[in-house]
């Protein structure tokens, strides 16, 4: 009984990780640092103070503050914390059983009033697996079953409550979708049954929001002019976030695959002047010029093979490179559960196989995603003043032989591969950690040889 109690006491409960106080100073010394904001630093020093990057530079050029906790990361590689622009962790918790399914409110195709944050389970193991993949910031979204799926939430992967996870000042995006998925209503004899109707539903909602905004603008003008009998319009929780979209405060995060569907999004964006990120963008490479001339970014999912649905059959590993060449800003996302958050870096590596430059691939995991979420002032690069969110890697970012060793958020270590309880979130087997057999050929030997370019 006492032993049991002891286990209970030392077992981390909930989602609270990172024993280090955020107000301390942590210094990472000796690693090759990819700050992304500038060229790689071969042997760098990175100082994180009070959760923010206080200094970054070459060894010898950045002084180590007295009393700082020094992390010797010689021979390792540091990149900024990874930004996943499209995830369903927490909102589609594991295991995937109906009790945990809170992604799609399939009772109507227009749900802009819904907020993802009302359905997020911070103890979802998916969040810990995402940390094991080096993800520090995520855009958690409702699903793509609706034309307007709801308000997305931009979070850091920390804390016990969704409030802890929130990023100050970030209001999130509006999830929209077109193409195959919202058409599922058709099988019930409900709208939308066609792509035409999907677009019409979106257009009608935007027109309603324009009207609603005009009413409020008029009212506010009257109040500002000193009117006493101005009548306050009724509030509409569905239209408020759509108005924020029209005002450019909230970005439309739009699921869309096929080139013609992407063009429908651009048509709506041209018409209603909203800011939009194209998500998945399977056929974005076919309309790269249209995207480039409008400066519309694309958050891509890099999947292993084409298909699984008609709108994904023209997936091409070379697509990301075509977009890069056309001058379209790209990011990569997991759409977790579609791809595992543990392997988001792998997506970027596969895009390199398809022709993307390593530089763009790294930006696409970090700063580009941050920009797509209006978070570029806070995350995405390792620059003085930005959040101390970083990933310590065992080697070069895009090698299969490289592992995520540590993930830090604002100066707190959230994942450490050397901790047995964390390791299982990287490999799998966390539920049976007590019975998990020891792997004789595990980590050590493998990666020592890999460092010499071998790994066999």
């Amino acid at each position, binding site marked *: 009984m006492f032993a049991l109690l002891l286990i209970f006491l030392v077992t981390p409960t909930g989602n609270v990780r990172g024993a280090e106080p955020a107000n301390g100073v942590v210094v990472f010394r000796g690693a090759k640092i990819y700050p992304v904001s500038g060229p790689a630093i071969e042997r760098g020093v990175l100082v994180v103070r009070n959760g923010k990057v206080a200094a970054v530079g070459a060894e010898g050029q950045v002084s180590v503050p007295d009393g700082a906790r020094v992390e010797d990361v010689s021979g390792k590689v540091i990149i900024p914390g990874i930004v996943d622009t499209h995830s369903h962790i927490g909102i589609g918790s594991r295991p995937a059983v109906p009790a945990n399914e809170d992604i799609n409110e399939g009772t109507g195709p227009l749900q802009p009033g819904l907020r993802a944050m009302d359905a997020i389970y911070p103890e979802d193991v998916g969040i810990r697996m995402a940390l094991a993949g080096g993800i520090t910031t995520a855009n958690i979204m409702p699903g793509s079953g609706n034309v307007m799926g709801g308000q997305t939430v931009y979070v850091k992967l920390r804390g016990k409550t969704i409030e802890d996870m929130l990023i100050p000042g970030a209001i999130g995006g509006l999830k929209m979708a077109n193409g195959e998925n919202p058409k599922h209503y058709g099988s019930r004899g409900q709208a939308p049954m066609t792509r035409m109707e999907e677009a019409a539903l979106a257009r009608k909602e935007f027109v309603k929001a324009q009207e609603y905004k005009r009413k409020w603008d008029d009212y506010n003008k009257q109040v500002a002019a000193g009117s006493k009998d101005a009548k306050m319009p009724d509030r509409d929780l569905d239209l408020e976030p759509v108005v924020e979209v029209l005002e450019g405060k909230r970005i439309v995060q739009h699921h869309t695959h096929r080139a013609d569907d992407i063009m429908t999004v651009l048509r709506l964006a041209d018409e209603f002047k909203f800011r939009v990120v194209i998500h998945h963008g399977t056929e974005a490479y076919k309309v790269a010029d249209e995207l480039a001339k409008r400066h519309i970014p694309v958050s891509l999912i890099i999947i292993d093979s*084409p298909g*699984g*649905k008609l709108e994904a*059959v023209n997936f091409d590993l070379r697509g990301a490179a075509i977009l890069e060449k056309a001058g379209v800003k790209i990011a990569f996302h997991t759409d977790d559960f579609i791809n595992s958050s543990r392997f988001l870096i792998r997506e970027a590596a596969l895009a390199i196989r398809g022709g993307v430059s390593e530089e763009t691939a790294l930006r696409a995991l970090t700063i580009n995603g941050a920009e797509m979420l209006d978070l570029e002032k806070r995350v995405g690069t390792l620059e003085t003043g930005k959040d101390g969110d970083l990933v310590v890697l065992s080697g070069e970012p895009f090698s299969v032989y490289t592992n995520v060793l540590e993930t830090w958020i604002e100066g707190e270590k959230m994942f450490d591969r050397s901790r047995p309880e964390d390791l299982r979130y990287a490999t*799998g087997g966390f539920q049976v950690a007590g*019975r998990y057999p020891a792997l004789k050929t595990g980590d050590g030997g*493998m990666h020592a040889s890999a460092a010499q370019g071998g790994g066999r």
Partner: protein
Amino acid sequence: MRSRGMNWRKISLWVCAVLILCAAASAQKTAIIADELYSMAGGGPSGQPGVVLIENGKIVDVRPGHEAPAGYEVMHAAYATPGLIDAKTTTGISGEYNIPADQDQDEVTDPNTAEVRAFDSFNSAERLLEFVNTYGVTTIQVAPGIVNPVAGQAAIFKTRGPESPLMTAEELAVKPVSAIVFNLGESPKRAYGEKQKAPETRMMTAEIIRKALLDAQVYEKKWEDWNKSDKKDASKQPAHDLKLEAVAAGLRGEILVIFNAYREDDIDTALRLSREFHLKPIISSATEAYLMRDTLKAAGAAAFVGPTLERIDSLETMNATVENAALLSEGGIPVALMTGFEGYVPKNRVLLFEAAVAAVNGLGFEKALRACTIDSARLLGIDGRVGSLEKGKDADVVLYDGDPFEYTSHVTAVLVDGRVTYRQK
């Protein structure tokens, strides 16, 4: 032995004839020169410079060095390996569109469809077949899906690539019938339970399989008795039953017996059934197999692991680990890698990527390569033809511009039976 075996023999003969014709069509001499040649043959090059000489679709010599004799068309590569062998997949019967029109892997009308053959669903024009070929997969065991407790018969095929002519299933077949496949776990009970039909529980899934095995045993006995008899009274000859035939072939050990199972207890059920009917089981998917290595070893079971990138998602895959292949291999259990079945996006896994993930998660380069070449061939019983680069074997070769397992490397060319099926543009 018996007339009912004749159909398969006829097919095999016909397949042989077609293969001879194909070989004749590719009567050219090719030399593959690789900086690092992994022959996967005992005593053959393993990571050293090497040359593979090919004539008429077969390997005629494998030698160290960089020199090819005159008269050969030369292809250069940084790395070369044997063609990769997917131990179990639905590629070719589960199309990339994922619409009813191209899904032919699960005959969900009867929980026992032992009589169905993947061969008869196989669409040799399927684009995913060409797709996997571009990633070095040259041989696949195509098995019915994961829904029916008694799912039917698997077949082994070569793959076509973008440069291949359209070939029929017969032309691509290596073994028209290679295995009988049983499914345990969530999928059967989900599919039938929704329709208020059996099986609704794991108990019933096991019972359906047990009954199929028992019926086949009885059937087998009847035929034995008939064959031993003087065969005078034709009315006493047992009636042919294609369902029972198929399961009986598994009982006799003529074809492989594969149980697809994820959870530990489901794998245990597979072993229990195997003990009852003296089967030598192969566990496919085998998600939690790493938790029961000693049991599996004692049962003489082998595992088709994967996909390594299996999602930690449903209840039965919650304990999936990327170290499964490594742990099983360390535990002395024969392992081959498979891509299995994917029901959504992406529609197919890539064997090369699965092997890469297994390699860096404990299995190591050499063993991971074995698990998708020679070890896979051995478990499938086709190592006389494929799985390693050795004199006399089929000239199935993959060329790479870097470490095959690095995400950023490329497959530069693929040869099947000596013909280039894919060439990087």
